[in-house]
């Protein structure tokens, strides 16, 4: 087909002509319309729906500040620590850029955790948004990798020993573990070689994947349309032009709305950056102001706060706990066999896999299983769209007692996070083991509990109270 260009009259404004010229060659106006001015979002979003936009803002902050940090940072074991302090002292505004980046890391997790919580409460992961959720969990994984690699770069004691501990976890994998951790480090201990490759991952590899996934996340969302606190598909009720009756254009309504929230977020963010950048040792750990010393292990090594719920699950997996985990696996297999209508071959497969896992639990080191359960505790989120069988999406129309399940799950998650910061104690380990069961129970038993109880009638149209 021959190239066709829409001809504007000769006296048309120059801006219109320019736009016409671009639109003939690039989908500028159509993209703007599809994703902003004619992307119809439900009008009943509540405040929990702003955290997606905020996550995007924090991503931009991290990338921009990161670029400026890389201009002055030296990924060299002998120079790294001093180069960070050089940024803090000698680079004009370097301290601001660095604090924005270090606060941004924690802010990213705050925002993303709330964003995920919202997805959980209102069933945003349900059909047809499974891919939105999968890309989202992928983003979360990237974020964890990004935070882990980035945390080594200041080359302080916590950077160094945190990396040492996490890389050593791979050493617990049977047969290939020691070689695998050696391959990851590029040396027998965390060293200059490790620092260089972590730098490469932190500034190039992971950000590329992260940005790709963010684009996929948004494209997938805009393909199916946003969910809302009522869990109603607004596309099912449309006017004569096919515009959802309960939808409003993202731009300007949600762009001004998000702008308002962005200013509030920036105020909170600035309060931390300018008045408490260390955040009492949670955002910048005190021990990380001591340069990395491979010969001096700190008495207490804890990951940064955003990893601690998963780290607690790792620590909860002690040799005494294995028997309970084995009982848990056996009970779960029994539940699948008795309480599901799966084909017999799947039930046999479940029994065989369960048996193999239980035997392996007593063959391999509990340390290995700690790593497995920590990994599974993150990966299990991928399964959420296929674990939830509830006839309604939103918690608003679920049985009232479902709320308590979410509350218990939330508290268990917070307790795991708290215990992960603390030095291990006997009672703490016991509590974290109970919370580990609650954590996995929430997901694995969801096919059963999510259909139990009396569900409320979901209205046809969204509930909206004009402002």
């Amino acid at each position, binding site marked *: 087909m021959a190239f066709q260009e829409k001809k504007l009259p000769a006296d048309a404004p120059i801006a219109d002509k320019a736009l016409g010229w671009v639109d003939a060659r690039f989908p500028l106006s159509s993209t703007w319309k599809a994703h902003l001015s004619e992307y119809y979002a439900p009008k009943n979003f509540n405040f929990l729906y702003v955290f997606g936009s905020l996550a995007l803002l924090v991503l931009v902050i991290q990338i921009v500040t990161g670029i400026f940090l890389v201009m002055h940072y030296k990924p060299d074991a002998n120079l790294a620590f001093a180069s960070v302090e050089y940024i803090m*002292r000698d680079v004009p505004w370097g301290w601001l850029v660095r604090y924005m980046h270090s606060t941004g890391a924690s802010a990213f997790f705050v925002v993303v955790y709330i964003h995920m919580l919202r997805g959980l409460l209102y069933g945003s992961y349900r059909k047809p948004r499974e891919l939105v959720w999968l890309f989202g969990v992928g983003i979360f994984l990237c974020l964890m990798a990004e935070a882990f690699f980035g945390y080594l770069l200041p080359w302080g004691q916590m950077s160094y020993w945190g990396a040492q501990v996490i890389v050593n976890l791979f050493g617990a994998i049977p047969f290939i573990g020691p070689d695998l951790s050696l391959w990851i480090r590029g040396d027998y201990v965390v060293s200059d070689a490790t620092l260089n490759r972590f730098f490469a991952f932190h500034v190039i590899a992971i950000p590329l994947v992260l940005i790709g996934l963010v684009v996929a996340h948004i494209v997938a969302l805009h393909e199916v349309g946003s969910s809302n606190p009522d869990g109603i598909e607004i596309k099912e009720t449309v006017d004569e032009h096919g515009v959802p009756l309960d939808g409003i254009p993202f731009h300007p309504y949600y762009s*001004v709305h998000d702008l308002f929230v962005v200013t509030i977020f920036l*105020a909170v963010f*600035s309060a931390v950056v300018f008045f408490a950048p*260390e955040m009492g040792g949670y955002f910048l750990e005190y021990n990380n102001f*001591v*340069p990395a010393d491979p010969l001096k292990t700190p008495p207490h090594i804890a990951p940064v706060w955003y990893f601690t719920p998963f780290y607690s699950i790792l620590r909860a997996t002690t040799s005494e706990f294995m028997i309970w985990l084995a009982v848990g696996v056996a009970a779960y297999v029994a539940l699948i066999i008795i309480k599901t209508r799966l084909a017999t071959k799947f039930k046999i497969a479940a029994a065989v896999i369960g048996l193999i896992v239980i035997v392996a639990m007593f063959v391999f080191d509990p340390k290995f299983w700690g790593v497995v359960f920590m990994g599974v505790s993150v990966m299990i989120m991928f399964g959420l769209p296929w674990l939830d069988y509830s006839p309604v999406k939103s918690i608003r129309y679920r049985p009232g007692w479902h709320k308590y399940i979410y509350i218990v799950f939330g508290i268990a998650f917070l307790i795991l996070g708290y215990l992960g910061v603390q030095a291990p104690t006997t009672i703490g380990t016991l509590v974290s083991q109970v919370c580990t069961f609650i954590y996995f129970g929430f997901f694995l038993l969801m096919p059963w509990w999510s259909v139990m109880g009396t569900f409320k009638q979901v209205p046809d149209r969204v509930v909206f109270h004009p*402002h």
Partner: protein
Amino acid sequence: MRLLKKLIATLVLLPGLAVAAETDFPLDRAPDHTRDLAALQNGAKLFVNYCLNCHAASLMRYNKLQELGLTPEQVKDNLMFASDKVGDMMTVAISSKDAKAWFGANPPDLSVIARAKASSAGSGPDWLYTYLRTYYKDDTRATGWNNMAYPNVGMPHALWELQGIRAAKYSDEKDPHDPNKTVHKFVGFEQVTPGTMSALEYDKAVADLVSFMTWMAEPAQHTRKRLGVWVLLFLGVFIVITWRLNASYWKHIK
């Protein structure tokens, strides 16, 4: 025989006591003189005279001291002994091999020590302020000195001329948990020989020194807070604007 048993018991308990002392010794609150230029200049003077012989502050440039209200000439004439370029870092000539031989450990770099020493027990400055004021004479140590905040520290009391020599006083009290035992309890210091400063003057000098180290650990800290006030004021106004902007759009949505 009984004496021997006691000795063994003491030896067994000793590591526990040392750990207990390290975590339990209550930290004094360091007075904050970081906004007082005269105090910071005094702290800088003490720092270059007493600390910067063994400890480096290698992340700190001499010309940064100009922020304390000094001219490059004043810095050069009064505060620089190891270098003659104001753009140089505050390094020391001591070799790490010698340091290791003399003190058993390398004296740590002090550039960011005031941030590194923070813990749940208190802020970094609190720790430094307590540490520099709790040295006492202890002939069992190679240096002849010991410290309450940092038991069995390798560093001798660098400021002893100022503070004078002090000894730790202990009293044997009944163990509240076991009436047959006694606990060796620290009750205070006793001045053995006077220093060139009174106790009050010494506390003030240490407070100045610690304030200097606190400033040095993050020279931008007051700029940061000053700017933060303006940023938050701006955002406060901007929040009102975006709030009303949002409301003016949304009032049409029914």
